[in-house]
């Protein structure tokens, strides 16, 4: 493909799936414009990955390398639907890839879910990771015990952040405002509660092992918690159960541990949330004790009739994320995803021409960062097949630029983001941490456009 006939593609969302789609498109000779609502790139790597997992965040270096490609441009601070519409983009580009992720949380659907003191893990994670939309939230951590609902990696992240000492967290890129609030936390007991059994937990072995190695907290298991039925045994022996078997091995090492440290992480299985109760504020979470029924890999939790109550002043609901609809794009509200066939957006039975989808908004909110690479590769493969030998018809970048300019929108390009990046790293260095994130869009923009190298109190701006 020569430069003059390069396909022009817009990718919406600069998280992992957006960057991996961009990478594959650039390798195929396309010109790629990556559009992002915030002035900062990297999506959930910035706002989701836990601050005490710095190694995972090093994928940002790979993304930065992708962004350095001569046919790539970043358009940060551009909101879809307000600054430009999907229909306009479809006119400007040969193809549009929606990679907007799953930005909201799934509801539990039980009474008391919205009581004061009951939050989604999404809110809490976004807050301690400095997402501008969540900067104003407050979390009352003055109670003794917290319940975390869900047995996935996000639930474990929340559990770890609540169980680590502030001194341990101080050296991470956790936001200053969160560190201050966590320093005041009186939570000593964290209950990590799952609806199904130890063989069905969705966390990865590595995350589970980590909570067994904390300096200030012990993992505590109930006596018969790890008893498995024959169907669970069969799941763990199956190749599809490799990850669960690995995690089960680690759970076994937790058995019989005594509480010796100040804090405890209590693992609970087979408890399905029934209600969150309290007079104006969370006081307890009530569960149906369940047993599993059904065949291997499709077992469901059925109430046994017994109820269990856990006293807690805070509840974090970590039962999954959900995508939100984009104007002008088909959407399945039930699954919170965009209907597709191998990445081609489907409008009823027919593909929507020039419209593609990648990442969590395509296949739902599961899978670690790298899984999105395979997902984006599939999407790009479909797109390239659709392009066949048809030359590019689209005006591409120039059309987007002039449209944004006409609306008075000033996009943040990758060089401008580098200024934010450098200023955040400098602000962090002053505090002995890798980075102090800016949490207000105004500060980000002032830094991006003003060429300011450091900002004294970024979190208070």
């Amino acid at each position: 493909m020569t430069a003059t006939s390069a396909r022009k593609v817009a990718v919406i969302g600069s998280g992992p799936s957006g960057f991996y789609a961009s990478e594959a498109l650039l390798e195929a000779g396309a010109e790629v414009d990556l559009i992002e609502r915030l002035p900062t790139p990297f999506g959930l790597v910035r706002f989701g990955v836990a601050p005490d997992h710095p190694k995972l965040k090093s994928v940002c270096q790979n993304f930065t390398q992708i962004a350095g490609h001569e046919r790539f441009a970043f358009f940060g601070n551009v909101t879809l639907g307000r600054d430009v519409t999907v229909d306009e983009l479809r006119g400007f580009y040969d193809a549009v890839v929606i990679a907007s992720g799953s930005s909201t949380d799934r509801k539990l659907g039980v009474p008391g879910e919205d009581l004061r003191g009951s939050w989604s893990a999404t809110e809490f994670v976004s807050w301690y990771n400095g997402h501008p939309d969540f900067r104003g939230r407050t979390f009352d951590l003055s109670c003794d015990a917290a319940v975390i609902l869900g047995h996935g990696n996000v639930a474990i992240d929340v559990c770890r952040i609540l169980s680590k000492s502030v001194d341990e967290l101080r050296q991470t890129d956790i936001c200053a405002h969160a560190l201050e609030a966590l320093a005041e936390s009186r939570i000593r007991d964290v209950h990590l509660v799952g609806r199904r059994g130890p063989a069905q937990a969705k966390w990865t072995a590595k995350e589970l092992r980590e909570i067994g190695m904390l300096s200030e907290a012990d993992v505590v298991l109930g006596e018969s918690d790890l008893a498995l039925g024959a169907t669970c045994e069969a799941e763990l022996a199956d190749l599809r159960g490799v990850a669960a078997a690995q995690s089960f091995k680690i759970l076994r090492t937790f058995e019989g541990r005594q509480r010796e440290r100040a804090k405890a992480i209590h693992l609970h299985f087979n408890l399905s949330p029934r209600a969150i109760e309290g007079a104006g504020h969370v006081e307890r979470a009530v569960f149906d004790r369940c047993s599993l029924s059904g065949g291997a890999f499709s077992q469901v939790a059925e109430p046994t009739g017994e109820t269990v109550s856990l006293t807690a002043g805070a509840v974090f609901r970590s039962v999954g994320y959900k995508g939100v609809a984009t104007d002008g794009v088909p959407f399945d509200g039930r699954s919170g995803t965009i209907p597709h066939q191998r990445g081609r957006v489907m409008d009823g039975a027919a593909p929507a021409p020039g419209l593609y989808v990648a990442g969590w908004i395509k296949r739902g909110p599961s899978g670690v960062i790298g899984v999105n690479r395979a997902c984006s590769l599939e999407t790009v493969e479909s797109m390239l097949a659709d392009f066949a030998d048809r030359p590019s018809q689209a005006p591409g970048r120039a059309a987007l630029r002039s449209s944004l300019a006409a609306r008075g929108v000033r996009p943040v390009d990758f060089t401008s983001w580098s200024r934010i990046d450098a200023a955040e790293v400098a602000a962090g260095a002053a505090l002995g941490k890798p980075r102090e994130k800016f949490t207000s869009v105004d500060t980000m923009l002032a830094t991006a456009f003003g060429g300011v190298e450091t900002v004294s109190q970024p979190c208070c701006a």
Partner: protein
Amino acid sequence: MTHVVTANCQACRFTDCVTVCPVACFHGDEERLYIDPDVCVDCSACIPACPVGAIKEEFDLSGDEEEWIQINAEKASDLPVIRSKQPPLPTADARRSELGLN
């Protein structure tokens, strides 16, 4: 800590793992793949991607598998990065059956 490709990759080389690696840490020769421990970010995405369960966290290796730590490190440094899925070796299916993993 790192992840390593162990014995099961030999004669298979399915390469599904490389498509889910976020950081391009896989290297390969004609026979199998290796992980560069200096590049791997320990995300574990590759573990379930391998059809023959060849990839393990360093932490989960049995005593006689520990030799793979050094083999992966040494081989990876000399061999090219593998980023794209390639056809498995002709012996792959036979090997998978032999491992009892069909």
